[in-house]
Each structure stands twice: as C-alpha cells, then as structure tokens.
C-alpha cells in the first residue's frame, strides 16, 4: 500500500515536471486562434506547420544549429586536448610552484567568466576576433574547471602502476599516453559531455561577442526572434521546439552516458 502511494507520487511529480515541455510542443503545432483560448485546450481540433514555415522563412535556424554545433564541438575537443596534459602535470608530476599554481587555478574557477565580458570584449577586439566563433570558444576552453575535474580523477589512479612502468623505462609522456589516458576514458568522456552542454548553452558572452545574425548560436538566435515578435507564442514555441529537438534525439540515444557523465562531474570531491 505504502509502495503504491510512493509510486504514484513519483509518477505524478515526473509528469508535472514535463508539463512545460509538453505545453511548448503542443503550442508549437496549434493554429494561432487555438493558442489564445480560455480555458487553455490541451488537445486542439487541428494542428498545423504554419509556425514552422513562417519561422524558417524569416530566420536562419539551420545556420544557427551549425554554428552552435561548431562552437560546442570544437570547445569540447580542444578543451580535452589541453586539459589532459595540464591535469596530468598537477596530479602526477612533482615540480616547484605546482601547488601554488593549482590554488590560483582554483581561485579563477570561482570567478565566473560571464562577469569578464567587458575585459574580454577589449581583449578579443585587440586580437580582431570579435564576431568570430573562435572568440566564443577561447574563454570556454580557458576555464580551469576542465583541468580541475580531470585532475581529481587522475589523482585516484593508483601510484603502483606508474612506478612499475617507470622501472620498465617509460617516460612521463608514455605513462600519460599508455596508462593514464586509457584508464581515464570514462572521465574524459564525462568532461566532454560537461563542456559540450556548457558551450551549447552559453549565452552571456555570445550575446556580446556575436553581432551578425548569421554568426548567432541558438540561444542568441532565440533571443533575437523573441525581440522581434513578443507575443507570437506559436512561432516562439516552434523555435524553442526546434532548438530542443536535436537535444531530445541525442538524449534518447545517449541517455545513460549523458546522465552518468553529468553525475560524475559533480561526484568528485
């Protein structure tokens, strides 16, 4: 009896949690007159693609997708390539100044880079990088959290394996490539997922750095659409739905991996 009640609570909570998303999808396909009704109707007498055509006629949603994918994809790859050796050095090598530098790294982790938009604007301007995708990627790959997350995993790998490799004459680079990286693939994948989602959702700095409509990422694009039609909820929900669709598809395929990856990033101490 108690178990049944428990099950019902869980199911009800989950469904309530999904209502905003279901309502978005419902609105996206309703003809405008059926969107603005009191009481709101969950099932519309007819559904339509008018918002979809209206949207893609006016806005380069496809281009924004490509832009977002490029930015998130490159951020992820470069971030991993840069973070691995740095995390390895902090976790496994001994050198003077290491601990102090690591503490400085941790401090910059706490200063959210969204508040750096003013100085970043001038720095990017002097490199002539404003309005390029590189200007969005660079601050993301410079986040010390990527090194921190990997380092926390690297320190948990037992020292003995490394010692015996050293006796066999392995250099530190060989240890990294042949031992540490293969043993850390789940952690590296998790970091990749973390960075990808972070970059995919980045808003504040992109808003400043990207000014031409063609260069926009999805979040900035949606803001532009919203600015143009404040009350056309059919169109806005269609845009939101299209922005969600690929995420939904990827999530349905990689659900387990993504959730494991995301939980790992918060489980480290």
């Amino acid at each position, binding site marked *: 009896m108690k178990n049944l009640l428990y099950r019902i609570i869980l199911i009800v909570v989950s469904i309530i949690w999904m209502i*905003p998303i279901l309502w978005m999808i419902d609105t996206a396909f309703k003809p405008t007159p059926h969107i603005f009704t009191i009481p709101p109707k969950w099932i519309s007498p007819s559904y339509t693609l008018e918002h979809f055509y209206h949207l893609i006629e006016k806005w380069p949603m496809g281009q924004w997708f490509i832009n977002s994918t490029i930015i998130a994809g490159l951020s992820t790859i470069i971030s991993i390539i840069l973070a691995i050796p740095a995390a390895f050095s902090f976790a496994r090598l001994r*050198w003077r100044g290491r601990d102090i530098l690591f503490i400085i790294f941790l401090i910059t982790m706490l200063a959210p880079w969204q508040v750096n938009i*003013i100085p970043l604007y001038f720095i990017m301007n002097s490199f002539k990088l404003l309005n390029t995708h590189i200007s969005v990627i660079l601050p993301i790959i410079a986040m010390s959290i990527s090194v921190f997350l990997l380092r926390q995993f690297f320190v948990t790998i037992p020292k003995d394996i490394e010692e015996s490799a050293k006796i066999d004459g392995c250099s530190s680079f060989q240890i990294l490539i042949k031992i540490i990286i293969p043993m850390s693939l789940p952690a590296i994948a998790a970091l990749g997922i973390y960075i990808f989602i972070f970059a995919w959702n980045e808003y504040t700095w992109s808003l400043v750095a990207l000014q031409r409509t063609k260069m926009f990422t999805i979040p900035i694009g949606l803001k532009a659409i919203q600015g143009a039609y404040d009350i056309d909820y059919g169109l806005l929900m269609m845009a939101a739905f299209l922005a969600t669709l690929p*995420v939904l598809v990827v999530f349905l395929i990689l659900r387990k991996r993504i959730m494991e990856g995301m939980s790992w990033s918060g489980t480290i101490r």
Partner: protein
Amino acid sequence: MFSKRMKEDLVGILYILPFGIIWLIFSAWPTIYGFVISLYDWNPLKGSKFLGFGNYIYLFTHNRFWNSLFRTLEFAGIFIILTLLLALSFAFLLYFFPKSKTRTFSESFLFFPYLLNVSVIALIWKWLLDPDFGLITYYISSILGKAPRFLNSIFWAVPAIALASAWWLSGYRTTIFLTALETVPKELVESAKIDGAGTWIIMWKILFPLIRPQFLFSLVLTTISGFTALGQVMIMTDGGPGNASEVLALYLYRLGFQYFDMGKAAAAGSVLVVIMFVLTLVGMKILGLGGEIE
C-alpha cells in the same frame, strides 16, 4: 647542464603550458584587466582617464546599483534554496524507490530540462506565466479566483524567474545527489533500519552527511549560476517592470553595451567577483569542508 630538479620543474611546466597560456590570456588576465578598467573612465577612442575608485563610488551612491544588488540577492536566495531543496527531495525520493523502469523514467524526466538552453526555458516559462493566456496563470486563477500577473508584478517577477531557473537546473543536481547516495554502502542504511531509525533520521543523520562534499560542490556552482543569471531575466522580463528584476548581471550588461560606460560596468563585474569569493569562502567555512578540495 640542468640539475635533475630543474629538469623535473621544466617537464611539469611544459605539460601545463598549452592550457596555461590560453588560461592566462582568456581567464586570469580578464579578471585582472577588468579590475584595471574599473579604475578608469574608459574610452578607447578619446583616451581613458584614471579615476581611482570613482566608478565604485558612483555605483555605491546610486540606487540603481543597490537595487540590482538587492534583486540579485533575492533571485539567488530563492533560486539556490529552491534548486537544492527540490534536488535533495527528488534524490531521496528516487533513492528509496527500488530500481525499476519507473525510476529510470522519472530520473530522465527530472534531468531533461537541464539540457534545454536558457532561451528555451525562458520562452517556455514566459508563455506559461502569460498574464492573459498562460497555463499556470489559468490554473492558479481557477483555484484561487485570481492569479497575480507574475512577470508584470514588482513583487512576483523575481520569484517567478527563480522558479523557472530552479525547474531548469534542479534535475542536474538531483542526478549528482542520487549518484552520491548510491555510493553509500547499503549495509549502513540496513543496520540503521534494524536499530529502528526512521526514514527521516536515515536521510538527515546518515545519508546527508555522507554526500556533503557533493552538496558543497553543488552549492558553489548553483551560487555562481544564481549570481550571474542573465539570459532568463533578459527574455522573461528584461529587468522589468521598471527595474524590479534588474539583476546585477543585467545592470552590468546595460552599463557596458547600452550606455557604453565600460569603466562602471567593469566595476560592477569586480564587485560580483568579490561577492563570489566571499560567499564561497564563508560557505566552505560554515560547512566545514575547506579541506575537501584536496
């Protein structure tokens, strides 16, 4: 010839270098440079004038800054408490539920909103809270007779945005807490049950202390997102009505890119950074977890 020690130092630094250079230019330097800019009446075209703490004095003597600081605290407070409370409740709810299809589905449903981008969640919630045709507005007014005009209300604008943000992010925290709970040895819970401990005691006296490191990490990250929230505010209310939801990040953005007063904007940024440091240090002290990072 290098001594062995120097060679080791060199190797260590060499591995850091690729990341270190990027970090130095695009992470560490902006924070310092931001502080430098904040000391000037910054104008790259006409030449900048050194002001000392003039920009800070301007901010501290203007209501609009204090208003934005207060709104930020209000937003962050509601958002952090809601997010972590929801996440903890969900995590415990799932933890005590036997592993099954139902549980996997619930976990996925609760997590999914996290994958939506900030503009999507802001648009959805703006529509849900629409004063005339919003779903939530309708249901509340049919229960209570009359619903507040959430996003057009001086009182409700900030809590409404905080609620939307908590809906967005608490699923991710849930997953983190749940994973942490799963690593707690089952025997610990079982033996407590045999000793007659109730669910409440097990949750707070046994499980919660064991997931405190994850709780702290989540608290820090949630605090950062609470204090830097911008997208959802811009889209849902654009700071309104009046300045009732103009949080510090939005005020900073406006100072810099609408009024082009970069010095004052940088000063606002530096204030935000200092607040983050103080809060994090205090948080670590209170929770007694200062040593956990190592």
